[in-house]
């Protein structure tokens, strides 16, 4: 629609230049006077009783200002499972568990102090295999629980047992999906300071500033109203910041005990060793179809390894359930899952949040079913694609849905029909193409009591507009999107808008950045606030222009009569006319948007999001059959995003997500042996480099969502979801070998080829 002046424009983020020129202030850059450096002593053992902690030598070290153990902290638990204290007093349940902490005048002294702390452990039998953890004789990790099972849930629609018998073909697979790390460039960080009145300010890289207030309050007994969270510029997050971790209350308590501000930042090794990873999952799955091309049934049993403590990440099973239950039309489905405690590293939220795992299962089996009934996998997908304005048996109310267009575009642009029919082979090099789709919540996801976001828009008497939004910016572009929405509504240039999005003392509440929700939810809140401002402007302009509000429009910095645009007044002049007079008013609008979505019931059903995003990725790969090495040559990623408020950042999200998906597919793997992380550096962890990123062609499909701000839906996570499945399918197309465990390393490919005897 060409009637927009700002929506759809490729405008750089407000922080683009400060970031590119190095002027931005990240958490690690922040220094405050009298600041101390905090360090945490961590358990070297995966499971052990703590017999004794002696901190006396550390306390005597010159330069040490505070040493704390569990005894210093209020006996309060925190976390999604209420299963941990910030410092562990009785026993440790994983390698890296927090045992003591120090604050000192510099990092060297803090490190030295840690070495002076003596901890006596009594090792306990540990369990690292989630299946073994469920056995009755397994070591119990949390003594106040009856077993290591955290949650068992079953989801059913239709009659899956009967359907599996009815189906003409049934495929069955076991999937083994390993740990990966979000691995943001900026490691975890916290800076805590109390003022003279005892009020706490925390500088943080959190994704949930308002819930962090609450979490800190619960963990430490400090009233929430005395806690202010300031978010520094965040150097990547990808889900890491969705939970409060132990280091945050520890940092606060060090500051309280030392009576000075304390900064606590992870080393890169700590980041890999103890920050939350994507859940490793073992999934056994069956799927059935009819020979005429109807997808008939799906069944999955999921074993999720939470690690030693449960975080919000355990909710990933809900997302996985949704993918298995509702991606494509499937009349019968069952998902059973056990989420289990082990002595492994803790797991949490990572972009896609269960969806990459679920999509891998669904899309590998879609290919297998198509093959079993002798149908082209694209054709099979198109026949079963979700349609617009259709409710799935799960209770998911799909509104706009461009899945068919996404599949068709991705396939067309990769050259599906020619390449699929004749996968090429030259010497040792085989080529193939694969496709996979994704469905992702695109209108929030109600997993908390509120899924809302607040926004305030104020205008000063020079016409500068300030937007105060609860939406967190983690690099995804929420700042520019909110600015564009307000600019469009008020008919002003984005440069005239200042956005404030980093301070709980200033901005209205928001549940946090997750579920690809920010454009949709914060965008709607901003739109509501801007509409109030617009109404106030129009009210005054009516008097000044002698026309009714219905005849007026805000455009290009003026209020003007739509039919006689030469009759106009500058925006700022209207603002002053309203302000500087007897009984005048300043212009402030506020908006609150909480979507009409539902929390899932105990049966796993309900409309969790106000709308859904769809996408499809087609990948062409090259496989070296002598080394097993897979090289992605090209990716086409087509996404229904409702409307692209800023196409540049939509592309950025999809490209970044795709590369993250390629890492998941091919190279990234947090290697864990007996609870210990083995690869602790970016070097050993093998995230894709820019040299590994193939050309990615992004296709934006606009379906103009009725509920979205200017028609927009969320896109943040979608790029990551289908990639591994598309790559696995392309590998199969190239060499006829299926690898159901991630990452698909050259070694796995070569072994599989040798076993098949090629």
């Amino acid at each position, binding site marked *: 629609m060409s009637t927009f002046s700002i929506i759809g424009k490729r405008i750089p983020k407000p922080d683009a230049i400060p970031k590119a020129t190095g002027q931005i202030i990240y958490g690690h850059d922040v220094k405050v006077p009298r600041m101390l450096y905090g360090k945490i002593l961590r358990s070297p053992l995966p499971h052990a009783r703590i017999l004794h902690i002696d901190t006396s030598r550390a306390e005597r070290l010159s330069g040490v200002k505070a040493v704390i153990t569990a005894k210093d902290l209020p006996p309060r638990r925190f976390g999604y499972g209420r299963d941990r204290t910030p410092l562990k007093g009785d026993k440790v349940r994983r390698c890296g568990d927090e045992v003591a902490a120090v604050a000192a005048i510099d990092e*060297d002294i803090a*490190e*030295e102090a840690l070495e002076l702390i003596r901890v006596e452990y009594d090792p306990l039998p540990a369990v690292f295999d989630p299946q073994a953890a469920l056995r009755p004789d397994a070591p119990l990790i949390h003594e106040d629980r009856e077993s290591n099972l955290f949650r068992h849930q079953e989801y059913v629609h239709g009659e899956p047992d009967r359907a599996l018998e009815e189906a003409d073909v049934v495929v069955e697979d076991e999937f083994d999906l390993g740990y990966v790390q979000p691995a943001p460039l900026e490691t975890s960080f916290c800076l805590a300071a109390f003022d003279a009145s005892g009020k706490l300010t925390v500088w943080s890289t959190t994704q949930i500033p308002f819930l962090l207030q609450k979490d800190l309050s619960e963990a430490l007994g400090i009233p929430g109203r005395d806690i202010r969270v300031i978010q520094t510029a965040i150097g990547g997050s990808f889900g890491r910041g969705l939970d409060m971790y132990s280091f945050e209350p520890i940092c606060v308590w060090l500051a309280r005990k030392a009576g000075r501000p304390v900064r606590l930042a992870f080393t*890169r*090794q700590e980041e890999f060793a103890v920050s939350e990873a994507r859940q490793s999952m073992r999934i056994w799955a069956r799927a059935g179809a009819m020979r005429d091309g109807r997808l008939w049934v799906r069944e999955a049993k999921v074993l999720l390894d939470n690690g030693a403590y449960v975080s919000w990440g355990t909710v990933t099973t809900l997302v996985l359930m949704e993918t298995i239950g509702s991606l494509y039309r499937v009349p019968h489905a069952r998902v059973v899952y056990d989420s289990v405690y082990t002595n492994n590293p803790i797991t949490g939220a990572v972009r896609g949040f269960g969806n990459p795992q679920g999509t891998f299962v669904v899309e590998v089996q879609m290919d297998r079913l198509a093959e079993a009934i002798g149908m082209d996998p694209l054709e099979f997908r198109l026949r079963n694609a979700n349609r617009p304005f259709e409710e799935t048996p799960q209770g998911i109310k799909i509104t706009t849905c461009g899945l068919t267009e996404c599949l068709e575009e991705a396939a067309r642009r990769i050259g599906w029909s020619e390449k699929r029919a004749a996968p090429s082979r030259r010497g*040792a090099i085989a080529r193939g193409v694969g496709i996979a789709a994704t469905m992702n919540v695109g209108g929030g996801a109600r997993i908390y009591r509120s899924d809302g976001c607040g926004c305030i828009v104020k205008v000063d008497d020079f016409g500068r507009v300030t937007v105060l939004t609860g939406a967190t910016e983690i690099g995804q572009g929420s700042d520019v999107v909110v600015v564009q929405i307000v600019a469009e509504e008020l008919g002003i240039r984005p440069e005239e808008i200042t956005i404030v999005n980093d301070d709980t003392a200033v901005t209205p509440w928001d549940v946090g950045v997750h579920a690809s929700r920010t454009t949709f939810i914060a965008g709607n809140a901003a739109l509501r606030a801007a509409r109030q401002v617009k109404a106030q402007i129009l009210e005054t302009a009516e008097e000044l222009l002698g026309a009714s509000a219905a005849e007026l429009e805000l455009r290009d910095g003026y209020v003007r009569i739509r039919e006689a645009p030469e009759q106009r007044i500058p925006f700022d002049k209207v603002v002053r006319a309203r302000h500087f007079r007897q009984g005048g008013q300043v212009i402030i609008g506020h908006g609150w948007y909480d979507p009409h979505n539902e929390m899932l019931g105990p049966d796993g059903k309900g409309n969790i999001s106000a709308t859904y995003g769809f996408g499809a990725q087609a990948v062409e790969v090259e496989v*070296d059959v*002598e*080394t097993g*090495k897979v090289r992605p040559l090209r990716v086409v990623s087509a996404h229904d995003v409702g409307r692209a408020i800023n196409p540049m950042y939509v592309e950025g999200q999809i490209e970044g997500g795709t590369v993250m998906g390629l890492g998941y597919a*091919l*190279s990234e793997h947090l*290697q864990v042996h007996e609870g210990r992380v*083995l*690869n*602790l*550096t970016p*070097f*050993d962890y*093998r995230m*894709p*480099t820019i*040299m*590994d990123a193939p050309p990615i062609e992004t296709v934006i499909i606009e379906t103009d969502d009725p509920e979205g701000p200017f028609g927009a839906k969320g896109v943040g996570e979608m790029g990551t979801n289908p990639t591994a499945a598309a790559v696995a399918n392309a590998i199969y197309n190239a060499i006829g070998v299926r690898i159901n465990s991630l990452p698909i*390393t*050259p*070694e796995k490919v*070569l072994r599989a080829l040798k076993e098949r005897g090629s």
Partner: protein
Amino acid sequence: MRFFEYYAPKTLDEAIQLLVRHGEGAYPLAGGTDLVTKARYGHLRPRVIVNLKRIPGLNDIAPEEDGGLRLGALVTLAEIARSLLMGERYPLLAQTARKMGSVLIRNLATVGGNLCNAAPSADMAPPLIALGAEAVIVGPRGERRVRLEKFFHGPGQTELRHGELLTAIRLPPPRPRTRGVYLKHIYRQAMDIAIVGVAVLLQFDEQEAIAEDARIVLGAVAPTPLRVPEAESVLIGAPLTEDRRLEAARRAARAARPIDDTYSSAWYRREMVGVLTRRALEHLVSHSPER
């Protein structure tokens, strides 16, 4: 990283004296890409760091009278990659340098550092050994020279005694009709350390049909770079048929003594020695594209 003393001597003598005086815990610093990383990750705790970069003469690429070349220990990988002299006389080394680290790392990392760090996967070692390079070592008792093949004693261990420095690599004059290739097997396109590295150097006869000399040196499959004479011998003095190439590859794979680690299994490493050796020979014989 913990507190350390830092020196930046201007002469070699001074540097050696500093290292001798401070004993264990004193480390020479070249590019720093290994030392600083290890110190930061806590694998090393240097008490004293002696920066060698202010010492003149350690970073030259200098032609020698016999037609060989003296490669200063502090020459960076980037310089090796772009040096015209290297490209002309020892293209194998320029090509190897380009396969290491990333642009940023190559700008810092030095050839001497790569060798002295003595990782079994050090990329510079196999091609330099294949070329017959010699290490020039200077210490409290003066200069000595060691064939690079004898320089490595084990992972992180070299011929260097405390207080000694590797100051240069001496390369013999390039031999006529010689072609070499270094194949490095990694998962990513950059940054990875070699899962397997294979350097092959062949000297052909006048007709370019028969190899008069052959060198095969493997990296990352033994505690030190591994020369494989039993594979080399198959290739010398007879036409380089496919059968001979395969046999050489088989012998190289057999000779490898790889381990399992987080990068790869021993099984896979051995497989890759075979594949890479065969491919290197194919490339040199038939000018087929390098893979």
